């Protein structure tokens, strides 16, 4: 019942060709093409409603593009269980009666198979991943009792328990204080060691430049995709953000009049 399509290792982990996708009747993505290498860390930046969430959902095989192809190791994402989509915290029902360990165990159910129950090996793995994200002492807590940063780390643990090779994180840093942000950014190094490919939607251009291998600048269309120095050019940023961009101190430091709330590309699938 659960498809586990074998990977063609000569193919890129993610190959996106000419995809367009509609969200609420409007084009959220238009003709986007790129591919990723294994273990890369990609920051996806762009204004609210630029199609970042839609891109992630199309890549995860949750949404079907209206045009174009997505291939993960040479085949459609719908056959793979190695893609983890980490939702925005605002999309989660935190009152749900589950513990931290319960949520992380959900990542195992593809491996368990239909009608399979978690075995000791699975619980061991759950606790191992919780140790990696430094939450093992909170594994029995109900999920609303975690701080924002801890909630985000719990989802990273779940993606690790899933044995995900491609992690898509939708604005994991939004609404977190800087120590919590730091905690998550440090985890990116651990993910790199495990050869996990990571795409992170973020609003912070400085963090994008500092912690990520490549930056994708998105506003429905792919405006630029490359090394931070090549992408964070004023002309490209203006193209992505329009008038919301402010240039501070010549063109060295750039800030964006943009925040993390109520992007209209945040979809519900409930």
């Amino acid at each position: 019942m659960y498809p586990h399509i074998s990977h063609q290792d000569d193919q890129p982990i993610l190959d996106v060709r000419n995809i367009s996708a509609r969200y609420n009747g409007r084009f959220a993505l238009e003709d986007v093409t790129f591919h990723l290498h294994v273990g890369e860390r990609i920051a996806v930046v762009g204004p609210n409603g630029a199609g970042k969430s839609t891109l992630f959902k199309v890549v995860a095989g949750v949404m079907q593009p209206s045009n174009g192809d997505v291939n993960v190791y040479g085949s459609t994402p719908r056959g793979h269980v190695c893609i983890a989509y980490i939702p925005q915290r605002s999309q989660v029902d935190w009152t749900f009666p589950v513990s931290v360990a319960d949520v992380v165990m959900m990542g195992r159910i593809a491996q368990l198979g239909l009608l399979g129950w978690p075995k000791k090996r699975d619980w061991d793995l759950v606790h191992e991943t919780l140790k990696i994200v430094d939450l093992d002492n909170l594994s029995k807590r109900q999920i609303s009792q975690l701080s924002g940063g801890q909630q985000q780390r719990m989802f990273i643990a779940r993606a690790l328990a899933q044995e995900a090779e491609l992690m898509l994180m939708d604005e994991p840093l939004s609404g977190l204080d800087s120590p919590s942000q730091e905690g998550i950014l440090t985890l990116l190094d651990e993910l790199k060691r495990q050869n996990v490919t990571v795409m992170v939607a973020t609003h912070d251009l400085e963090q994008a430049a500092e912690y990520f291998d490549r930056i994708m600048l998105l506003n429905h269309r792919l405006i630029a995709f490359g090394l931070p120095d090549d992408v964070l050019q004023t002309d490209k940023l203006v193209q992505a953000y329009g008038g919301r961009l402010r240039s501070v101190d010549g063109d060295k430091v750039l800030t964006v009049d943009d925040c993390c709330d109520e992007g209209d590309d945040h979809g519900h699938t409930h």
Partner: protein
Amino acid sequence: MIAAMKGMTMATLINFFLEPLQYPFMLRGLTAAVLVGIVCAVVGTYVVLRGMAFFGDALAHTILPGVALGYLVSGGGTDSLFWWALGTAVIAAFGIGAISKNSQIKEDTAIGVIFAGMFALGIALISTVRSYAVDLSHFLFGDVLGVSTGSLWLILIFGGLVLLTIAAFYKEFLTLSFDPILAVTLRLPVGLLNNLLLTLIAVTIAVSLQTVGVALMVAMLVTPAATASLLTHRLPVMMGLAALFASLSGVIGLYLSYYLSIASGAAIVLTATAFFTIVFLIKRLRN
């Protein structure tokens, strides 16, 4: 003297509990109330967690025309009504599910239109029979003391099937309810599981028809689960507590019904509501 009085009160107390049990209809009624309570509570946990209370209420009302038709066809008999209820409930569950996906009208509006219309059709059908007032009230509010041994077996078998299915797909239903996107990225058969859950709710409603009736059904689905949700943060515990509250409500409600001569379905629901109110207030006071 005091010892004698004590003996007497003890005897009265025992008598209080035993007296109703000498009637086979009371025994059958109590068994039905407990079984239905457990099944409703466990399924109701998902109804509460997924915010499907209105859907459950609508589905219960929508089966009335099917039940009425069975009633007319069988010439007033009640033994075959379970099958009519079951058939209608399953069809209605998928019908409502399909209409909800049509985005032209808002989901709750579409459900409201269908459920009121079907409910009215049911009443119209039953009103063609001369003795309709009594029979209609049984369909609306239940007639647990009229449960036959045959019906009890049907409740046991189909209720058991519902519980077994929920246990078998525990982790799938849990994941699908908490994070539908995760369920898709883990490539669970999401459409199939959603339809399975709708079917389980439909079967539960058919199983509960005679005990609480269509109008009070939503209370059995929602109230015990809501009470339990105030007391725990773990899903299995929530299901167990909900089942406990529901079966206690069934037993206490039936005793109340026996001694106070009030309608059994109403007594059961009122007891469940009392449990909820007490737990809610205690939690409020503690905070």
